[in-house]
């Protein structure tokens, strides 16, 4: 039986952050994730390394912490961060008193926020006239009172998780994806290990661990229950619509019909409209999206950007915020502050720790705090270095032109590889030297090269081809993988030496994973595209039908 100092459960941003920090401090670490790295709440987040201006009213602590840590993240992973300038649009209220209050009130908030901005390196807020707003973002409606600008930062969440997991591995950790913790091994009340099940092969394995860390986001209560204690969350479902294009260059902050703050914001090569925030007590792994939620988001966006419906919703991101339990508050006011539960003190279960709540933006500092406690428990003292040492690929940023010339690829494609892999980009493209066909663009919307897919399959724990969605954005573009899923699956099959049956099943799994993300949002010309996609994928490849034929074989 393998033995570890620390078994981290959950491959979201927190689990990956904890695994990295702990491994860097010399612990023997294992990270297990039941699905894919970053496929939980982290995949459904807005991907903003922001200070959380909306928490300024309810929790200044969250804002400050997030701003400080946002600065660190920019230092350790500069390649995967992009600036998102925002415009807070001030609507044209009928009464001037009302207008005055909003304008002055909002200005005051943004100025306060600016006090923290020095930590995260944003430009200070600035008042804008209606004409200035329209000049910056012509799609915004005309009859507005003005705007205020501010700066935020976006990040590729899965790549952030992967970089953390990779660094953990480089420091000796073992990373297992598609591996679920199914039960705990106990010695009296103490937790001394766990039984793990490989969700792809079905095999189980027992491992020993001195401490098991529950970093399972919205699944925290479930895992705690498995360990024999209770942790309460007030889970809130958050939905984003993803548009087929970058609709605006600026993030546009607006107010929904019920007065909630909403945004339309560019993210990589698409735009997000978000987000809803409703109590949700269903299965965090199977979150349905209702037509009302889609209508609500589109309506809010439309009242500020009248042409929003000219873009097409290509998919719906859904996730559950693992918000800490506090009764009686409105969803929006719930604090994002995190909490670490030492179950030895709290419930008399030594060897088990849980972290709940929190935000992507402060994952690093939360992880630091979590590992501090682990070190204390284990009686070790090595200091944290997670804010000082760059993440893999974060040390230098190579030139896209040089890389493009070296490998004979398009400079834009090269820049995207650099964005995801930083200084490791040349490693990623290496296979082109021996196999020139790897310079081929598999997903033209990103664009993603065959070489990057091959690299990810070899080095980044890709157990199912649908994991590639998060590695290198295959199938994330306007055609949602219509033309690239089969090709990406073929590379996956080649690398894993899959037979025909497994290849077809793998492609089916990929098609189904993408369909699940978009089926609720199917509308307009998207329906025609879907008809074509079915012709190609079901007609020519007969994937699903063939699995059925196969089953009839002796």
């Amino acid at each position, binding site marked *: 039986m393998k033995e570890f100092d620390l078994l981290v459960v959950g491959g979201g941003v927190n689990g990956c952050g904890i695994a990295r920090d702990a491994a860097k401090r010399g612990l023997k670490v294992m990270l297990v994730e039941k699905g894919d790295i970053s496929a939980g709440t982290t995949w459904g987040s807005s991907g903003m390394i922001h200070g959380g201006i909306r928490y300024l009213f309810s929790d200044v602590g969250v804002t400050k912490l997030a701003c400080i840590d946002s600065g660190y993240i920019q230092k350790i992973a500069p390649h995967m961060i992009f600036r998102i300038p925002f415009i807070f649009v001030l609507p044209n209220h009928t009464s001037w008193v009302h207008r005055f209050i909003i304008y002055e009130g909002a200005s005051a908030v943004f100025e306060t926020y600016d006090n923290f901005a020095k930590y995260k390196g944003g430009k200070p807020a600035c008042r804008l006239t209606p004409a200035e707003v329209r000049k910056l973002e012509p799609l915004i409606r005309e009859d507005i009172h003005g705007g205020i600008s501010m700066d935020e930062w976006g990040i590729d969440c899965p790549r952030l998780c992967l970089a953390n997991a990779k660094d953990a591995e480089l420091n000796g950790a073992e990373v297992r994806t598609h591996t679920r913790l199914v039960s705990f091994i106990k010695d009296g009340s103490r937790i001394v290990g766990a039984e793990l099940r490989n969700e792809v092969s079905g095999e189980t394995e027992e491992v020993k661990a001195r401490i098991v860390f529950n970093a399972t986001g919205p699944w925290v209560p479930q895992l705690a229950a498995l360990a024999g204690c209770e942790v309460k969350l007030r889970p809130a479902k958050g939905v984003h619509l993803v548009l087929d294009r970058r609709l605006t260059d600026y993030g546009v902050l607006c107010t929904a019909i019920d007065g909630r703050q909403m945004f339309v914001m560019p993210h990589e090569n698409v735009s997000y409209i978000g987000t809803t925030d409703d109590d949700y007590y269903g299965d965090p792994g199977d979150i349905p999206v209702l037509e009302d939620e*889609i209508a609500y988001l589109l309506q809010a966006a439309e009242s500020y950007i009248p042409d929003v419906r000219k873009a097409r919703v290509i998919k719906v991101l859904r996730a559950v915020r693992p918000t800490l339990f506090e009764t009686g508050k409105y969803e929006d006011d719930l604090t994002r502050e995190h909490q670490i539960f030492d179950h030895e003190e709290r419930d008399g279960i030594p060897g088990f720790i849980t972290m709940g709540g929190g935000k992507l933006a402060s994952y690093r500092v939360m992880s630091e705090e979590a590992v501090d406690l682990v070190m204390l428990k284990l009686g070790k003292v090595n200091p944290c270095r997670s804010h000082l040492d760059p993440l893999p690929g974060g040390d230098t940023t190579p030139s896209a032109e040089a890389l493009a010339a070296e490998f004979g690829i398009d400079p834009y494609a090269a820049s995207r590889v650099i964005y995801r892999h930083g200084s490791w980009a040349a490693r990623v493209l290496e296979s082109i030297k021996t196999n*020139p066909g790897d310079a081929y663009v598999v997903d033209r919307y990103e664009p993603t090269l065959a070489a990057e897919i091959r690299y990810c399959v070899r080095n980044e724990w890709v157990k199912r081809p649908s994991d590639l969605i998060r590695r290198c954005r295959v199938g994330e573009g306007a055609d949602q993988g219509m033309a690239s899923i089969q090709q990406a699956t073929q590379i996956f099959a080649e690398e894993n030496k899959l037979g*025909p049956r497994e290849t077809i099943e793998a492609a089916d799994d990929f098609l189904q994973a993408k369909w699940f993300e978009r089926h609720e949002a*199917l509308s307009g010309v998207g*329906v025609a595209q*879907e008809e074509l996609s*079915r012709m190609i994928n079901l007609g020519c*490849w007969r994937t699903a039908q063939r699995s059925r034929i*196969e089953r009839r*074989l002796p």
Partner: protein
Amino acid sequence: MIADRIPYVTSDVIVVGGGLSGVVAALAASDKGAKVTLFRHGYGRTALGGGMFSFATNHDGSVKDALKSRIAAMAKNELLPYSQMKDPLKSLRQAYKLLAAKLPADFPRDIEEDAPQLLCLSEGGALLRGDMAVPQVRSGDLARFVGGDVKIAVIGFTELPFFRPQLLKEQWLMDMHAAGIEKAEIRVFTLPMLDDGRQTFFRMYSEAARILDAMNPLGPLAERIREEIKGFRPDLVLFPPMLGLARRDAVRDMSELIGPPCAELVGGHQAVAGLRFQQLLDEILKAADVRVVTNCSLTGSVWQGKKLFRLSGLPDGEEGNSFNDDGVIYVEAKSFVLATGRFIGGGLAEDGDGVFETICMLPVTYAGKRLRGLPAIKLVERDYAAKHVMFSCGIDVNEHMQPLNVRREAAFPNLFACGDIIGGYDLVLDGCADGLALASAYISGVNAAGGEK
């Protein structure tokens, strides 16, 4: 004859849509002596498909199990509109004969009930059965080799890196095994298509097809292929679906130059066989006595009394200025045929408030239920490969192929419909859409021209 600028069109019969069903409807009406004008706007499923067509249903059964039994099944079929037709087989045959008379000689002239189905390998590795295919695809018919040992050489080109014959080989063998073809041997040969040492990749098969079109003569390439496969002595040489777009004799030339019969695989989103078939249809129209208008999309309809009176539309692009003052084009005829397809073709659309028919606002239904007002989310399942209402719906017709209105009567006495726009079956899963297109087109065309005399 192609007329480019027509502000005002009058005709006996107006056919909207230029895919398989539109062309057959136009030919049928014209054959009955009517003056026909066909409006075509972009390409639909015919052109985007793999170039192989199946008339009945479905993909199961042995190769020898030919049309006969499938057509018998079809007559009992609940599928609309077959279940409406008095004699679906007769309509299908007449439609096919009419079309085949104008197709190149390498298409059979008639549907023979006892003829085996065509058997082709798809680019994706699936073994597909069909009843009609463009020549390049058809000469890949494996049925001819069944029973003996089949030795197949598959040619891969380094310029097409996404076409991975090494990997697909296993899938082909698996599928052939499932279809009862036991003794197949497949060997893959990969070589550069262009011999100039350049590093080139083609994303689309059509790019490779155009290069091949321009490659004159094919000799040097064929010679290199012949060298590669010499030791293997294949019965059949298969190419990716890229054997020339304009040059229809590419496959024959290849066969002559290489030795064994050559063919190409079916399908793929970048395939050229569907486009090639569409080109054939376009040529047939040019030669027939049908006027074709290509630069205008029809979007509205006007009726007078009970009859459909006129369609209106908008010209495409800049050329619109040369149309009427108001930029609208009007189209009048004694009768009209809708052959506008489903979503790809543009016959149906979804606007956030359910599915609708785009020109005459006919009710769109599934299983007799109207779908207007139902959001798309209610018309799809969570399972990708399931049968979705969204992809099986369409308009309803009676036995004369007249679309039904909400009271389930013929909407207009002089309006007919054919092809994919008629709902009741899934275009992909039911595998009978092409037969339905032909049969319904024939009935529509004849009725639009005034019926069987």
